[in-house]
């Protein structure tokens, strides 16, 4: 097993391609057993015994966009926390204070969103 970093990535890529190949083999076996017959009403998405033929690709009204916007910012914050967490124990107190300030700033943003009613079902 190659232990160099690139070797690991090659294994992962091989795993991905192998999985796709495995699934294609499964599909091939299933198709070999029998084919799917097209019959009236069979291709309409099943909605509890009644036919709903209208397409449903409309502008979906999600109610959690308040959370989604704050999530984007918190996700950016996480990108900074990983390298910090790895060197935290070596750096000691300065790391704690540094990240403390960073997290306090972002917690401020969360409190602001919370107070303005972003964290609820709009």
């Amino acid at each position, binding site marked *: 097993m190659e232990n160099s*970093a*690139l070797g690991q*990535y090659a294994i992962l890529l091989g795993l991905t391609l192998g999985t796709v190949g495995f699934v294609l083999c499964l599909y091939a076996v299933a198709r070999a057993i029998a084919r799917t017959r097209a019959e009236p009403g069979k291709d309409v998405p099943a909605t509890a015994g009644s036919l709903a033929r209208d*397409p449903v*690709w*409309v*502008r*979906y*009204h*999600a109610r959690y*966009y*308040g959370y*989604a*916007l*704050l*999530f*984007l*910012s918190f*996700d*950016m*914050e*996480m*990108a*900074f926390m*990983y*390298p*910090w*967490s*790895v*060197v*935290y124990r*070596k*750096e000691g107190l*300065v*790391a704690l204070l*540094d990240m403390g*300030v*960073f997290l306090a*700033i*972002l917690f*401020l*943003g*969360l409190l*602001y*969103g*919370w107070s*303005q*009613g*972003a964290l*609820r079902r*709009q």
Partner: protein
Amino acid sequence: MTGSVWELFFLVFFGLAAIWFGIVVFRTHSMVRSALALLFSQTAIGAMFMVMQAEFLGVLQIMMMATEMSVMALFMVMFMMDPGGMGAMEMSHQKRLSLRAGGVGLLAALAVSWLADWGPAAASIPDASRQVELLGIELLGRSMFIFESAGLTILTSMIAATMVAIAPRKPGGGT
């Protein structure tokens, strides 16, 4: 030297995949397909980082782009007409202007990549865990100011997003 030939091959392969997904973003009529094409284009770029042995950057790129492009897909579906692309309407506007802008951008990128002095190629690359540590030390050392100002910009983005998107509540509303 066979390693670097494979590296070059995969670098080019993922580069072309990124470009092809980038093209699909504008060719397709369905909004969700366009958003997820952008997602997989970023994943291809993340894979390029990993081929260039910048593991932390690559994995971070793959992870964060997956989630944030999905949230973008939701907003595209919410606010674009006919998100499923059923009507196959021609949605591109200002074609001449954008073609010219694209051409200028391409030339600028090529110019920077060819003309800038990148210095000698690094002979030995620190291994992945060392890279993460170096990045951590960099964050806490020389670039602490950049790190904290990044925190402030994220804070302003939060406040701006909330002010724009959330309707001001009637006074005395619940939490």
